[in-house]
C-alpha cells in the first residue's frame, strides 16, 4: 500500500510536468502561422481527445513494444518498471491534448495589443512567447488547468489496468489476497479525496498569489 502511494505520487508528478510541457508545445503549434504545424496540432488533439485514456495506457503497455525492434521489445518487457513508464507516457499523451486545448483558448483570450506591444519593443518570436504570451496564457488558463490536473490525478488510477503498482492496483491485490476489499477500497478512496483536496488548495493559493500579482501591477501603473 505504501509503495502504491509512492508510485501514484510519481505518476502524478511526472505526468503533470510532462503533459504541461507537451501540451504547451502542441498549443503553440495550434496557434502557429505555419499551416503544417497547425494541422499537426489539430490532428493530435482530434486523435487523442476522442479516444479514452485507458486505451492509450493499454496501447503503450501491450502494443507499443511490439512495434519496436525485437531486441528492444524484450528489454522493455522485462524491465520491472515498464508498466509505470507506459503509464506515464499514456497519461501524458492523453492529458496533453486537454492541456493544449485549455492553453490555446488562453492564448486566444490575450488581446492582440499584447503581441503588438511585444513586437514593437523588439522582442523576437521566442521571447514574445516566453516573456509576454506564455505567462498570460497560464494565468488565464489556471482554473481550468487546475481542474484538469485533478482529473489527471484521478486518471492515474487507470494505471492499475496495466499492472503499474499504484494505489488502486495495491487495493486489488489486498482484496485478492486477504478478501478485505472494502477496507482497502475505503482507505484508497480516502487517500484520493485527501490528495485531491490538497491539490485543489494548492491551485487556489496559486490563483490568489497570481491575482495579487496582477492587481499590484495595475495598481502601480495607475500610481505612476
Amino acid at each position: 500500500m505504501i509503495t502504491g502511494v509512492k508510485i501514484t505520487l510519481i505518476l502524478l508528478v511526472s505526468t503533470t510536468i510532462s503533459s504541461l510541457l507537451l501540451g504547451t508545445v502542441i498549443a503553440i503549434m495550434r496557434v502557429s502561422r505555419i499551416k503544417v504545424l497547425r494541422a499537426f496540432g489539430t490532428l493530435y488533439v482530434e486523435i487523442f481527445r476522442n479516444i479514452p485514456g485507458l486505451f492509450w495506457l493499454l496501447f503503450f503497455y501491450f502494443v507499443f513494444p511490439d512495434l519496436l525492434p525485437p531486441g528492444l521489445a524484450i528489454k522493455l518487457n522485462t524491465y520491472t518498471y515498464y508498466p509505470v513508464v507506459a503509464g506515464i507516457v499514456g497519461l501524458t499523451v492523453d492529458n496533453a491534448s486537454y492541456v493544449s486545448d485549455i492553453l490555446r483558448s488562453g492564448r486566444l483570450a490575450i488581446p492582440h495589443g499584447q503581441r503588438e506591444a511585444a513586437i514593437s519593443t523588439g522582442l523576437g518570436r521566442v521571447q514574445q512567447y516566453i516573456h509576454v504570451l506564455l505567462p498570460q496564457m497560464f494565468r488565464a488558463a489556471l482554473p481550468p488547468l487546475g481542474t484538469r490536473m485533478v482529473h489527471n490525478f484521478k486518471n492515474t488510477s487507470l494505471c492499475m489496468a496495466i499492472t503499474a503498482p499504484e494505489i488502486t492496483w495495491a487495493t486489488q491485490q489486498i482484496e485478492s489476497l486477504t478478501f478485505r476489499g472494502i477496507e482497502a477500497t475505503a482507505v484508497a478512496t480516502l487517500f484520493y479525496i485527501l490528495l485531491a483536496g490538497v491539490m485543489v488548495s494548492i491551485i487556489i493559493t496559486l490563483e490568489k498569489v497570481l491575482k495579487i500579482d496582477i492587481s499590484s501591477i495595475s495598481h502601480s501603473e495607475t500610481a505612476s
Partner: protein
Amino acid sequence: MDLLDQFSNINFYLFGTFPKGEVGGLLLNIIMAFLAICFSCVFGIMLGYSRLSCRLYIKLPCIAYIELVRSTPLIMIIFWFYFFLPYLFGGNVTVFWSAVVSLCAYAAAYQAEIVRAGIMAVPKGQLEAALSTGMSRYNAMRYVILPQAFKIMLPSFVSFFVSLFKDTSVTYIIGVMELTQTGIIVSQRQPDKIYAAYLSMAIGFWVVCFTMSHLARRLEKRIGVFDLESIRPDACRDEFMLVPKTKKTGEGVDETPSCCSSDSK
C-alpha cells in the same frame, strides 16, 4: 485475405454476440453512456439546483456529495458500487447495471456543477426583473433563468457527454463486455490479431466521440446566435460579485470549451 482475417471478428467489437447472446462491444458502450446520461441528467439538475439553495440542510449534503464524487477516481466509484450493490439487492446485480449505476452517480456530480455554473452565469438582474414583474420563483426559473442557463450549459454538457462516453471504457475493470474488454480478450486469446484489436478499439471510440463533438459544434453555432454576448453588456459585474466568480467555476467545470470550435475561423 490476411487483412480480412485480421478483422474477422469485427462483429464482436461492434455489438458482441448480440443476435445470439448478450449485447457487447461498442453498442454496449453506447447503451451504457445513454442510460447514464439520461438518469444522471435528472439527478444532476436536481442536485445542482439544490446546491444553490440557501438552506444549509439542503445545500451541505449536496456539496458534500458533489465534492466527494469529484475527488474520487471513477474506478473507485465503480468498485464501491460493485461491492455494495449486491449487499443492497441481494447479490443478483449484473455487472452491467452496477456499471451503469456507478457511471450515473459519477456523472451526476459533474452535471450538478455544470447546472450550477449555468444558473449562476445568468445575470442576477434577470431574476430580479422576473420577480419584480410578479412572477413566482418557479415561473421565473422555468421561463426566464433556465432557458438562458441551458444555452450557457449546452457546450459543457455535450463535452461532458463525450468524456462520459470515453469513461464507459473503464467499466471493463469489473468485466463488462464492452469494446475495451472485447479488445483485450481478443488480443490475449489470439495474439496475432493484436493490431486489429487495438485498431478496432481506437476507431470505435474515435468515430463516436468525433461525431458527438462535431454535432456539438454545429449545435453551438446554431443555438449560439444570441447566447453569452447578449447577456454580457448589461451584466452587472460591479454590483454582483458573484458573477465573475461563477464564471471561473464555469470554465473550471467544462474545462475544455468545445475542443476545436474556433478552428474553423
